């Protein structure tokens, strides 16, 4: 199988879906001639032309809202938010509209839009080019939120998102774009939205996480394996709605659970994961459910000293995993 980067998986998925279904089109800021500021839409403008790879005016609420309109008509828009941080002007369209269209119309209408956005830190992006924004949306029934960690998952899940008949927020870790590479089959495939994935089987402790942190956990697990600590790692992949069964199974397996996110601690995805475990696995637990997260400050500062203080990394994860194993 060819090895490609995380961002190449994005581009391939878009390209193949556009080839497969002419109702699929891309819209966003600088996605056309420029191929996206991260070059996620590289080559699409040349292949599909400016009508299917639309450079929009600089207005996120319109990008989402126009996309939703086109989706209601029957198209398959894939909207790009240039940075996840800039999705905020579109919150009304996403929460009040996309999430509620099927429900409010009693199933008469649907809004099958996919909204992609690069998120996450560790790229000297400072406060507004580093945020994890999933928690803002992770309490809105009607929405699905996908946050893949590997090129394989990116491609399979982005295709599934585009084909899904409900609105999907698809958050891509911008530091993973070129850092993370992996094998991806050449033939067409999709992966199920809503299913977590065991990325490492283990028996001593369970780590549940998503996005770039999956790799931090895997790295840490390799080190800890040398010390005889065997970690089970569950990648949530879809962070809303969560895969409850998957979480319960993974937590029960070892009875010692560490939840990891690079988002702030209070009110994040892993709080819900913890609550699910607590509700369902109390008597299987051998240690308190631990959360390792970014500090509760607004976002990552620019200066390297402070950015490092905020940003998750393999060492922080390793330490927390060892502490839990030793509990």
């Amino acid at each position, binding site marked *: 199988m060819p090895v490609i980067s995380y961002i190449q998986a994005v581009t391939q998925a878009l390209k193949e879906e556009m080839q497969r279904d002419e109702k699929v089109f891309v819209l966003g800021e600088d996605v056309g001639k420029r191929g996206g500021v991260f070059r996620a839409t590289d080559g699409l403008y040349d292949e599909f032309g400016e009508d299917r790879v639309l450079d929009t005016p600089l*207005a996120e609420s319109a990008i989402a809202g126009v*996309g939703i309109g086109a989706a209601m008509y029957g198209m398959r828009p894939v909207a790009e938010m240039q940075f996840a941080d800039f999705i905020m002007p579109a919150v009304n369209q996403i929460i009040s509209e996309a999430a509620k269209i099927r429900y*409010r119309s009693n199933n008469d209408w649907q809004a099958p839009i996919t909204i992609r956005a690069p998120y996450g830190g560790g790229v000297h992006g400072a406060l507004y080019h580093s945020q994890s924004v999933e928690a803002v949306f992770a309490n809105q029934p009607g929405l*699905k939120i996908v946050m893949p960690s590997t090129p394989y998952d990116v491609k399979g899940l982005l295709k599934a998102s585009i084909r899904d008949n409900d609105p999907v927020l698809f958050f891509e870790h911008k530091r993973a774009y070129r850092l993370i590479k992996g094998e991806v089959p050449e033939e067409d495939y999709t992966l199920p939205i809503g299913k977590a994935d065991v990325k490492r089987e283990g028996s001593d402790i369970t780590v549940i996480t998503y996005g770039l942190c999956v790799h931090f956990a895997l790295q840490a697990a390799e080190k800890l394996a040398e010390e005889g600590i065997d970690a089970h790692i569950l990648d949530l992949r879809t962070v809303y709605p969560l895969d409850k069964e998957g979480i319960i199974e993974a937590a029960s397996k070892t009875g010692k659970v560490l939840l990891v996110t690079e988002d702030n601690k209070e009110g994040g995805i892993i709080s819900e994961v913890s609550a699910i475990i607590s509700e369902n696995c109390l008597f299987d637990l051998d240690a308190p459910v631990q959360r390792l997260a970014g500090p509760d400050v607004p976002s990552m500062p620019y200066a390297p000293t402070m950015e490092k203080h905020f940003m998750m990394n393999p060492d922080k994860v390793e330490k927390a995993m060892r502490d839990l194993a030793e509990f």
Partner: protein
Amino acid sequence: MAENRHKSLGLSDDEVLDMFRTMLLARKIDERMWLLNRAGKIPFVISCQGQEAAQVGASYALDRDKDYALPYYRDMGVVLSFGMTAKDLMLSGFAKAEDPNSGGRQMPGHFGQKKNRIVTGSSPVTTQVPHAVGIALAGKMEKKDFVSLVTFGEGSSNQGDFHEGANFAGVHKLPVIFMVENNKYAISVPVSKQLACEKVSDRAIGYGMPGETVDGNDPLAVYEVVKAAADRGRKGEGPTLVETVSYRLTPHSSDDDDRTYREKEEVEEAKKKDSIVTFANYLREQNILTEEKEEAMNKEIDDLVNEATDYAENAAYAEAESAMKYVYEE
């Protein structure tokens, strides 16, 4: 006999009579809903009264077998023109399971009916504006020649979504008709505290589109500008901004008391221009609305409204458990 204004617009006598009938139907359904509300039978009403001419005039200027409507909560005249029935509307008023708009999930005035290309709407104002643009964009991509009509209040034209949607349509030359139903108030706030421009249509130039302000009590005037806008749209010449000026004849909704912020005299004055009165007069002058026809029409509509009310009142609510359905595709 006064000047025949509709013929030069290409409208037959039957057509204008039909327009009037739709206006009257809207008015009578609305009036009934207020009665039902005051009798404690339905919890909420929000009215079209004073805007029927604009709504029906605009809708009849479109191809109602092809074009899309993205109405706002007052647009009973639009949805009736696009094929919704009195019964449908009463089912919505009573929040019954058969309500085609939402199965009783949304308040009345939150229209939507796919088979008639009436696009589902929500409460937050102006969100439908970019949707109309997206639908027009899809049509352009698919090389269809339909237009989309999106309506909203003058207060709502101050939302960012109006600006962003209008600009998008302007840049991409999309066949959207943005119609502002200026009824002089946004709940209690008069237009002087909403807008500093003389006319909402002054905003059109900022999006590179033509802007028209027209008497919203005159269905023929509205028909004319919307027809021209639709023609432009179909020819690929882009969007148009239309402002119809009339007056909100009722309180904002059944929850409002408009005496706290406007004078009774002002409302009385406005009623003199009520299109249900003035357009009827025009049709009478043209000998189109004869006494006989008027009587028959009134009777027919009253029967329709009665039947619809009875049906809806006796219809079933959705089951409690059905609240769990249709969050995602099933």
